[in-house]
């Protein structure tokens, strides 16, 4: 079936599904059915809707796990399975099947989406307990899970795009879930609009793929990718990168992610940290057969990744809103994944590895933040927190696990995954490697700041706030995720993840780094320690003011303003577009409408004039009859005899 050579770009060549794999479609169908039942069933499902909405993703998780175990037991060359459901579109040369592809890459994603997704569903039962629209919330969550599963299971770009748009829709619905808040509605709109920019890139890429290869199927394109010219491949790579940037909140399309925190916290954890925002990374890794042949596009990926690492980190350093701080961190961490993906065959596996561990610890910390907010009357300002470790011991301990994982404390999951990316980056180039290393130090700084401001130091609580631990339905998932945050690094044991993903992304030992691996690791740990220490100096030893100080450096002000990303968008895009639209509007009113209404007025005036002939006198009518008759006869004579 599949001959695997070191360094070669693997070809997608699945066998058709049989046995347990024929249940593949069910993984998507279960949450989709949940969404349908909850959203169509209306208030009749209010009582038990959230339970059903939780059970169905758990069912998908069980199925994913069974498939995964079976896949691991299979021969390495036989780990790609496809299932043809039906012919989706057949128009002329365009023949798209509703096909699913199950291979190691999608297997890992299935586990992440359904596993973390299920935990977050469970958590939401407690978090949304008092919301009158809880049933609808679970319906949207199920819709999201189904769409995300479609995205990672599709066997062609069009199916992927279906899921891509589906998660965009679910994200829009969930960001704006509390639609009574204008800020939430605006945030949802903003996320949607910015994502449209990426979607344009995606859809253009898909059209171009069809034009170039005559198909949108991974199987066909991975086989024919070498036939396309370098320019075509570079353009394709850049277009796909544009799509990835929007979905994964990477520079320059990052501005929506912080606003997206308007959604309920479980949404931030599931969609805007653990799964959906990583779809861009998935897209690039999945399209490895294109990027491997388009080095310029790969360079662009690396550049975008590095900018995003620092952009997100800077935001994380300055935000006092705990969720926005985490959102900045998400952007930065996805930057690491993009970096891994941009490094080519040596980095794909590590990008996915970091994606998995990040899914664990970031979901963990977001849910922890939700738990804190739950106890603090939905206050998100960290300057109003402090000394919460005693009031919320479970939340504190689980959050701490996530914290240690994200900063890369030796032994925790994040340590292994980030270290590998830094190592690969160093091997690729000094500059990229050092940037990645510095980023890790900044991560240590901003996460320590968050930890200290929230759980340590003085009480800075608002009046009438009585922090308390959350119910066990919320802390249970926290514990599970904390365990995963600690142990996630196990995937690297014996290079398992590289070997497992090799049939999809190929494998290529990176060049020897300029320093021994152990030295790189040591330096990384030291850099992180420096960041942590700096944070301790600033926020641990000194009291944190209850209101943010205003006499701060330009850099802090800029970081607080998200490095002016919104202003840049406004200046570069929004305002010119407004002017353009205004101009078009004037053109429409004066030109198009003017022609129309002018035409209508003209016709009306003509009617008024012609009406005078209709004066009611028979003599006039008879005259017009006579005139008409003369005209007809004379015209006939003139035309035919002349």
């Amino acid at each position: 079936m599949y001959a695997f050579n070191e360094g070669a770009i693997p070809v997608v060549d699945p066998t058709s599904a049989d046995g347990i794999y024929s249940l593949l479609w069910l993984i998507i169908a279960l949450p989709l059915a949940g969404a349908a039942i909850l959203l169509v069933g209306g208030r009749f499902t209010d009582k038990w809707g959230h339970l059903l909405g939780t059970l169905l993703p758990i069912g998908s998780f069980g199925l994913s796990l069974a498939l995964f175990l079976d896949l691991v037991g299979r021969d390495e060359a036989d780990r790609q399975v496809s299932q043809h459901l039906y012919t989706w579109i057949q128009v002329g040369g365009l023949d798209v099947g509703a096909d699913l592809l199950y291979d190691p890459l999608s297997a890992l994603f299935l586990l992440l989406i359904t596993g973390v997704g299920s935990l977050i569903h469970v958590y939401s039962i407690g978090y949304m307990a008092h919301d009158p629209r809880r049933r609808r919330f679970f319906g949207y969550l199920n819709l999201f899970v189904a769409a995300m599963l479609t995205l990672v299971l599709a066997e062609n770009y069009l199916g992927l795009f279906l899921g891509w748009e589906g998660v965009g829709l679910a994200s829009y619905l969930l960001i704006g879930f509390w639609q009574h808040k204008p800020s939430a509605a605006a945030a949802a709109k903003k996320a949607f609009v910015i994502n449209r920019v990426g979607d344009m890139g995606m859809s253009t890429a898909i059209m171009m793929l069809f034009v170039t290869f005559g198909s949108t199927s991974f199987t066909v394109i991975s086989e024919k990718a070498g036939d396309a010219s370098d320019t075509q491949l570079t353009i394709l790579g850049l277009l796909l990168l544009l799509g990835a940037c929007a979905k994964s909140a990477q520079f320059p399309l990052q501005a929506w992610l912080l606003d997206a925190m308007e959604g309920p916290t479980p949404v931030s954890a599931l969609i805007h940290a653990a799964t959906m925002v990583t779809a861009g990374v998935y897209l690039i890794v999945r399209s490895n057969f294109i990027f491997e042949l388009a080095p310029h596009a790969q360079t662009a990926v690396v550049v975008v990744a590095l900018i995003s690492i620092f952009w997100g980190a800077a935001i994380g350093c300055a935000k006092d809103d705990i969720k926005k701080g985490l959102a900045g961190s998400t952007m930065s961490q996805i930057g690491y994944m993009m970096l891994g993906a941009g490094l080519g065959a040596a980095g794909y596996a590590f990008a996915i590895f970091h994606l998995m561990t990040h899914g664990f610890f970031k979901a963990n910390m977001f849910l922890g933040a939700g738990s804190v907010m739950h106890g603090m009357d939905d206050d998100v300002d960290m300057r109003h927190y402090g000394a919460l470790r005693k009031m919320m011991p479970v939340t504190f301990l689980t959050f701490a696990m996530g914290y240690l994982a994200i900063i890369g404390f030796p032994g925790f999951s994040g340590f292994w995954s980030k270290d590998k990316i830094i190592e690969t980056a160093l091997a690729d180039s000094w500059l990229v490697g050092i940037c990645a290393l510095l980023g890790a130090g900044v991560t240590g700084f901003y996460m320590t700041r968050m930890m200290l401001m929230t759980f340590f130091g003085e009480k800075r609580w608002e009046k009438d706030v009585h922090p308390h631990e959350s119910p066990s339905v919320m802390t249970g998932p926290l514990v599970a995720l904390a365990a995963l945050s600690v142990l996630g690094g196990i995937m690297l044991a014996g290079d398992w993840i590289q070997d497992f993903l090799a049939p999809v992304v190929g494998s290529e030992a990176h060049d020897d780094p300029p320093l021994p691996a152990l030295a790189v690791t040591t330096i990384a740990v030291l850099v992180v320690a420096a960041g942590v220490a700096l944070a301790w100096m600033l926020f641990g030893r000194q009291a944190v003011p209850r209101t943010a100080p205003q006499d701060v450096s330009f850099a802090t002000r800029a970081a607080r303003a998200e490095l002016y990303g919104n202003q840049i968008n406004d200046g570069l895009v929004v305002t010119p577009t407004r002017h353009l639209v205004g101009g078009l509007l004037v053109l429409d009113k004066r030109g198009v409408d003017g022609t129309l209404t002018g035409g209508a007025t003209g016709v009306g005036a003509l009617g008024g004039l012609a009406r005078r002939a209709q004066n009611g006198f028979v003599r006039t009518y008879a005259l017009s009859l006579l005139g008409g008759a003369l005209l007809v006869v004379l015209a006939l004579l003139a035309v035919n005899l002349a």
Partner: protein
Amino acid sequence: MDFTKPTIEYADLWPLLVVFGVACAGVVVEAFVPRALRFIIQTALAVAGILVALAGTVIVARDLDVLGDGVARGAIDAEGTIAVDGPALFFWGILLVFALGGALLFAERRLEGGVSAFAGQAAALPGTEAERQASTRGLEHTEVYPLMMFALGGMMLFSAANDLLTLFVALEVLSLPLYLLCGLARRRRLLSQEAALKYFLLGAFSSAFFLYGVALVYGFSGAMGFAEINEAVRNDIGNQTLLLMGIGMISVGLLFKVGAAPFHSWTPDVYQGAPTPVTAFMAAGTKIAAFGAMLRIFYVAFGSDRWTWQPMLWIIAILTMLVGAVLAIVQTDMKRMLAYSSVAHTGFLLTGVLGVQAASELADGEVTSLQAVLFYLTTYGFSIIGAFAIVTLVRDAGGEATQFRSWRGLGRRSPLVAGLFAFFLLSMAGIPLTAGFVGKWAVFTVALAAGAWPVVIAAVLCSIIAVFFYVRVILLMFFDDDDVTAPGEVASVTKPSVLTSATILVGVAATLVLGVVPGPVLDLAANAGQFVR
């Protein structure tokens, strides 16, 4: 000179004879039956006569002989004067169906509180004591039924006439009863009588042109029969000037009847003044009959000389659509608006007349000109009768309230009736999923296939203008406030008897069905085949 007994093919002609027979019987009923019984007997007689004639038409249509190459079915009867062929029988069929609707509207007595829409005593001067007496005694003219049957017979004969003299006789038979009927309104009698007189004077004037044209064509060809004229035209045997003037003058007579510009000026006045049931009947009937005659004379008698008359019809078609659409915009009276809209429809129908005539020139599945016009007439007939039937329902203290301002907000007061009216208007505007759309599509396509694209462009533009005045009425009914209208002017819907309701419902159903599944009727029109020559 020997007299030869003419052969009359009663087997083919009996539906026509039934109609004339019932008309004559109606006259006898008027003479001998007591006044109290006349209404019921006349109504029953007319409806039964129409139904029998309809059944007869179907029977005759099933037994038509296929002629020659199979494109035409039927025979030329009564010594070459009447052609009973597929198209003629199609015309008869729809004429009878619409006459049935007309008869039901004639018989409606609930709207006027127990009497019909016709004058109690036409001879009594308006505003006199005699008129008041006639009205208190509950008098009514049941002569309208025989008059309608005579008109119907004339229409049927008009669309089947195969020589010029028969054509002229049919023209007069259909016109004279209509002149009378127009003057018989119960309310606004002066307006009605004025309309009747205008119609009569102008009709007589146009008949004179027609007859002069007949004489000139006879002078050219030495024959009255269409086939002989066609032979003469093809061989170009006579004086071309005579022929051209003849064609022109005959056209004037026919174009007057269909209401084409510039011969349309009677239409709004007569449509407005005539009793609304009569308006409904003649709007559908006269148009069908006149188009039947026009198609036959142009295709059969002058068919081989198409390029002499087609440019003239191009201009007339464009002018008619333009005049109808533009003038409809400035109307403020529902009946006048519908009258001008019917002028516009005449233009659209003329567009269809300009299309490709021979099925052999068309690809499989394309419609011929004749087929398109037949279909259009069917759809138009249903919606115009339905629309006028609804006009009879919308009333205020003074009878029918035809002013636009009275219709304001009708959609809120009587959503069903206003909704149905809106549906008829949408069909006339040619909105998809209504019959009107398919009809317009058919006539535009055939005209386009024949290369008459300037006419089609004008037709499309006029359709856009037409949408404006139809939709304006819908806006008026559904979206305008009625508080700006003075209390006395607000019209409301009077509940009709089953007669009018049935007419409206059949119109709605047909308009909907022909819009959604036009296939069967288009096939029927295609099966009618070509004219027998």
